[in-house]
């Protein structure tokens, strides 16, 4: 009691102290500590998370790993970073005012003759760089130049896989986040208010989920040219349903808990009760589902790309790689690469999902 009074007298220090207190509290919440221990106890899932995290993190910097622009060019005492800045060819003594094509032997010669150096990324191809020096007709088999070969348009498969992985995961993550927000909101409203809202909502969802979504997406994709965001929107139309059932069930249970009643007796608004008291319970179910929703989001995009209704032509895409593998059975490296990358990515996410499920399993306490 005295401590509290002292703190009030001190004013500002008190603020700091309490904020630190809040932070510590959030960090050391014992239930979360136990969950984290349970998560780590599932070593397969734990390592899968690390592996996936590193892969994803690295792929975020794809431009520095696989690019047809050098990382660094020194030319006549100046330092150029073509990764970041587009320099016209005239800067290096060339003829065109357009951006320099560093893969052009002429440009390389210009720089080297002037005593400059070019530092290339690990893989000197971007996802849309066409290797014009192929010794055989495309698709070319794996070689020292193209580690996993090229596809049927002469583009380096490694570069396309790195960019494709990134776009798949990003697409999946964004779709998952939006689908979860909508799904949780709808499930929360249905479960919390119950009655007619619930009844009508459930019937609408039943009708909505019996719509053959794939055909609908194909039809829409045929009418409007799908971009990343349009595709995201179309898939979101159907993906949000996944979480509604679980969240609704949690809310139906949660709204009758005694502390929710107590909150109502205190005069809290419904919105406050939902966010403060009921939603945290539903989040456990949501988080457990998340890796699997991420999985299905990625698969949905891959399937559309495979069928040719997905991302715009030329985009790096794992589904498109699979389609190429199917069309070029004489080039097995295409199909194998696509399969292995997709299988690894999805398996890792399933492993993570299993570990998350363990972490939130309340029966796992006595171990």
């Amino acid at each position: 009691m005295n401590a509290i009074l002292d703190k009030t007298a001190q004013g500002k220090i008190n603020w700091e102290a309490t904020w630190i207190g809040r932070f510590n509290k959030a960090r050391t919440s014992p239930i979360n500590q136990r969950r984290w221990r349970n998560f780590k106890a599932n070593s397969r899932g734990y390592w899968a998370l690390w592996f996936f995290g590193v892969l994803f993190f690295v792929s975020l910097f794809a431009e520095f790993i696989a690019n047809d622009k050098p990382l660094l060019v020194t030319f006549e005492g100046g330092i150029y970073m073509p990764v970041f800045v587009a320099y016209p060819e005239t800067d290096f003594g060339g003829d065109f005012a357009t951006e320099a094509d560093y893969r052009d032997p002429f440009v390389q010669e210009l720089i080297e003759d002037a005593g400059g150096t070019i530092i290339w990324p690990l893989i000197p191809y971007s996802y849309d760089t066409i290797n014009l020096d192929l010794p055989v007709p495309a698709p070319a088999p794996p070689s020292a130049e193209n580690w996993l070969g090229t596809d049927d348009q002469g583009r380096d498969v490694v570069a396309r896989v790195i960019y494709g992985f990134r776009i798949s995961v990003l697409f999946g993550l964004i779709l998952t986040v939006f689908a979860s927000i909508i799904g949780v909101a709808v499930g929360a409203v249905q479960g919390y208010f119950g009655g007619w809202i619930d009844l009508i909502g459930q019937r609408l969802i039943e009708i909505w989920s019996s719509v053959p979504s794939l055909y609908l997406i194909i039809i829409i994709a045929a009418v409007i040219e799908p971009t990343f965001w349009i595709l995201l929107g179309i898939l979101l139309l159907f993906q949000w349903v996944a979480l509604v059932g679980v969240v609704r069930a949690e809310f139906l249970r949660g709204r009758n808990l005694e502390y929710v009643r107590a909150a109502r007796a205190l005069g809290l608004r419904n919105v406050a009760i939902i966010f403060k008291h009921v939603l945290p319970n539903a989040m456990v179910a949501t988080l457990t589902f998340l890796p699997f929703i991420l999985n299905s989001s990625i698969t949905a995009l891959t399937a559309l790309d495979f069928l040719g209704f997905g991302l715009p032509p030329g985009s790096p895409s794992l589904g498109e790689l699979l389609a190429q593998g199917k069309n070029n059975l004489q080039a097995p490296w295409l199909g194998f690469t696509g399969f292995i990358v997709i299988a690894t990515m999805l398996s890792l996410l399933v492993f993570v999902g299993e570990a998350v499920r363990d972490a939130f399993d309340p029966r796992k306490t006595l171990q």
Partner: protein
Amino acid sequence: MSGGDQKLVEVKDLSVVFTQDGNETRAVDKISFDLAEGETLALVGESGSGKSVSALSLMQLLPYPAASHPSGSIKYRGEEVVGADERTLMGIRGNEISMIFQEPMTSLNPLHTIERQVGEVLAVHRGLRAEAARKRVLELLNKVGLQNAESRLGAYPHELSGGQRQRVMIAMALANEPRLLIADEPTTALDVTVQAQILKLLKSLSREMGMAMLLITHDLGIVRKMADRVCVMNHGHIVEEGETAGLFDNPQHEYTRHLLGSEPKGKPLTARDDAPEIMSTDNLKVWFPIKKGVLKRTVDHVKAVDGISLTVRRGHTVGVVGESGSGKTTLGLGLLRLIDSDGPIVFMGQHIEDDNWSELRSRRADMQIVFQDPFGSLSPRLSVAQIVEEGLLVHGTDLNYDARRQRVAEALVEVGLDPETMDRYPHEFSGGQRQRIAIARAMALKPDFVVLDEPTSALDMSVQAQIVDLLRDLQQKHDLAYLFISHDLKVVRALADEVIVMRNGKVVEQGSSDQIFDDPQTDYTKALMAAAFDLETAPEGVVSS
């Protein structure tokens, strides 16, 4: 039986240790006791004293290997149980030693009929099937006094009342005529009237079948009524052991004396009769419609509260008593407008029965409620400070963070908790402390009227007394008006000036506390009192079973 002096169960130096994440918790520390054939031994203690764990180790039902016995032996008829192989244990469990649990709702499988539940035990241990099993099931159900046993064979657990479910549990436990019955708080979840019936049944069964009984309870009233001998447990130790009568008359250990002296006692405050009215209602009705048919027409109503009139004055406590299902809680919720009701409700001189939710919100600060279950009524994800300040966030919007912490600290001090603990989470507190937090949450708003919905029912006997004292102190300090809902007349007598006895939503008797307790007019009230004060059963038909 070999030799007259061989005990049925002999426990020597038994310890139980739970290991979780490398932390060891010693739940039971070197206890020794024994139990003769046909004898009833009671293990008494507050929750967390290790009594249930001791009983579970008799059947080796603890979650091994998280639990372990670093020392001690348990001999059942001379045979070692600790570390025995699964075959030996299977022979003992259910066959020789049976168990009944506290919560009859969760101990029965909700998807199986009564016949199947009891029959399963017979099939597993005796190989009885079909007609033979059916006959035996009926015999058992009749033995445990389940009325209309024949027509209830096909019933599911949810169709039975709490007392009836407990009877079915007992029938299952008795199916193989065990020599020892372990009863783990068998009546804690039941009404006082039903509790009296179940206790009577257990006593007569153990006498009839010559069955020994290990009774685990926190209620000394039950012990006095039931047990031949008592072991008092505290923090994993047996602190005192002896014949029931001797121990009650002449308790040696300080802790036993503390337990014995911890019944809710004291008199309600004497309040002025002309104190201003805080809450009153006249002919209040809460009817839940029963809808049938395709068009869902209302064919009838469940009359949960059917025409109750009451007035609560400043500084007064109105006690509402009755069996479960009599509409006590519904009445409380109806008065606070937490559920729809029909009839005038006057709060602080203003009619609130037609107020909408936002008009009510401003009044919520002045009328509060404390719930029964201190575990369910506190959100496990919020710290104590967050729980207590919740109402202040709604009603004291001009308070800043520091001022709210200040008010939280004051409320915690008021209910006897250390304000330094306000950043901890509810699970770190005991049941009694949690109930104090729930009271602090209500008191932080400085209300005028508080509905106390069985605030002591889920608590240990000694803690109940403390909570009752606390409530009385708070009432005196702030001149509060209470509506005190309980099925336990002992607690009501210690707090209420006025009592309403309810049954099936209607008033059976209403009057001043002295009048009701000294001179009850109806059989129903008499039965409630006999059950609460003497653990006696009433003649059939007066109360539900």
